[in-house]
């Protein structure tokens, strides 16, 4: 997983509530074994998408063709658990999403892939969004994870909160499975205990087993 330290770049505005993963990564646009995630990203809404194309949408504007940060509304990433939503966002070059809030599974998927999910304190979010809109892709923002802050063009700083564990995972690009595998013996011990205490839990088709 790519480490997240400091990211500087264009911030794109998508300030809408309840943007779901069906919109971010439309299923019909690419349920194949190796999809083109960059092309899938909001495939229905971006310019060239035909009748549903939205000329005001950030991806329809050339100055937002390589954003680093996405500013979003409440409940971002709701709906399906599809991780392709995160991969699409990353394929577009985005490393950090600043939203009013994230759906649970989506936020977890972000952490799994090194995409930084940021929620600003109430009151700060409006100011941040206003600056993203004002910058209009013309001036860069900087996200510094170690310092827990975003610096807007003109110097205004926005401090955010993230748990030390989640930050560490992103800063070091930790392999999550590797971390869990250090507990291999705990898991094996748990399985042994369960085989004795709740044998049905360790055998899927338990009815086939003779006592």
């Amino acid at each position, binding site marked *: 997983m790519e480490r997240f330290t400091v990211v500087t770049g264009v911030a794109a505005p998508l300030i*809408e*509530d*309840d943007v779901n993963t*069906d*919109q971010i990564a439309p*299923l*019909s646009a690419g*349920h*194949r*074994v190796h999809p083109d995630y960059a092309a899938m990203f909001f495939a*229905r809404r971006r310019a060239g998408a035909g*009748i*549903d194309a939205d000329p005001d949408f950030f991806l329809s504007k050339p100055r937002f063709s390589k954003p680093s940060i996405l500013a979003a509304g*409440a*409940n971002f990433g*709701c*709906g*399906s*658990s*599809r*991780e*392709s939503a995160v991969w699409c966002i990353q394929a577009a070059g985005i490393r950090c999403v600043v939203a009013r*809030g994230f*759906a*649970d*599974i989506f936020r*977890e*998927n972000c952490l*799994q*892939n090194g995409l930084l999910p940021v929620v600003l304190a109430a009151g700060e979010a409006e100011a941040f969004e206003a600056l993203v809109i004002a910058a209009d892709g013309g001036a860069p923002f900087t996200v510094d994870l170690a310092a827990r802050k975003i610096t807007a063009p003109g110097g205004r700083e926005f401090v955010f909160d993230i*748990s030390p*564990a*989640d930050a*560490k995972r992103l800063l070091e690009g930790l392999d*999550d*499975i590797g*971390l*869990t*595998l250090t*507990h*291999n013996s*705990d*898991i094996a*011990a*748990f*399985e042994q205990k*369960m085989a004795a*205490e*709740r*044998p*049905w*839990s*360790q*055998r*899927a*088709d*338990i*009815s086939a*087993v003779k*006592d």
Partner: protein
Amino acid sequence: MSVTHFDMSATLFDKIWDAHVAARRIDGRDLVYIDRHVLHELHAPHAFGKLQKAGRAVRRPDLTFSAIDHTPSTKPGRDEHTNPEGLPLIEAMRAGSLRNAIRVFDLKDPEHGISHVVAPEIGMVLPGATHAVPDSHACTVGGLGALAFGCGTSELEHILATQVIAMHRPKRMRIRLDGSLGPHVRAKDVALAVIAHIGSAGGRGFAIEFSGAVARALPVEGRLTLCNLTIEMGSRTGLIAADDTVFQWLHGRPWAPAGARWARALAYWKTLPSGEGAVFDSDINLDCGALQPQITWGTDPGQAIAISGRVPDPADAEAHRRPLLEKALVYMGLTPGMAIEGLRVDRVFIGSCTNARLSDLEEAAAILRGRRIAPGMQALVSPGSAKVRRDAEALGLDKVFSDAGFIWGESACSMCAGANGDKGERGERILSTTNRNFENRQGPGARTHLVGPALAAAAAVTGEITDVRKLLGGAR
């Protein structure tokens, strides 16, 4: 010896969680053991590939199962070639499963179907057990008193390699559903009313326990429907304490424990319900006594109203919500204040992990018997599993549906996500028993109204959104 918890302050959720924590990771996450892990072909091939690249083995192939439910066509007589787009995924799924010694519930398998329908019906999922699926509707099986988590592809890979999921313990929410349901008001209506009440992000960060007289009175299939929609409340998991209704339903299912093991398991399951003094982080009460059949008007499952209701006016909403509501109205082709009843309907779909179990088909068939769908209506029913389909045929329901003009489809996800080629057309108004009315979900430009099977069947017959109670009352 079995562990018993007599802690009267613990919730059902906490008891199951605590009974599955294999370790606490240094980052503060609990490693929650997953008793049954079910994969599907949209996401598993990717994870199989990554696992192989990393040189990691599947820890418990015997507790892991592969469903093929998202992409197959549901056209009568289908095979894996009917939807050519799905074929590479199905083939990758078979290959990855074979390589890792995982049983596949393949298309011709008598136990084929939508995983959330199949897992309960064969007794794969048990009360007090944990369950994970890389699909957000994993929460369906909470209806049996199991703790289930929808997960992403990385989490899927993590569970394959370790058999645990690394999570922070969510907060607990109790939703008490009081009263008793009126005629033609079922679990789907209750669920839609709850989402409308707490909002589609209202349950975020919580595990939800449904309780109260309505939950207790729901048959198992209704409980599965209610818990299915937990994710639409914003919560990753929801459950209802298993009771005699569940135990009777489960007893004798093919994979459920039998004999002395059943007795031992039963004794354990009875220790799980939340204690008298259980404390929840959030408590919500909803009286369902006056609840009417529900229907969504917009593009978010929380935008539900009573069948006798009117489309809301964005002007009445908080200012920051208005643009979304206006957008939904335009997409759905509606104007504020209009009655939802009487709108012309082009297509009806009865299916999905929400409402395609036998009782759902029976409910719809009771309305369709002796009736015909309206001229020009397109109507498809896709039973949730091969077993549901067989059981329905044994009852003659296939004939009821066909005689009424429905297509009696094969089982799979079908028009729920439109990933199998079954889609609505642009501008079409669809009454659907599924769980998401998002823009474009059932086809670009398709307008989805979520309903229960009764309203779907009623609309198929009349060609317009219809209060089933009036239809059956002979008011038409």
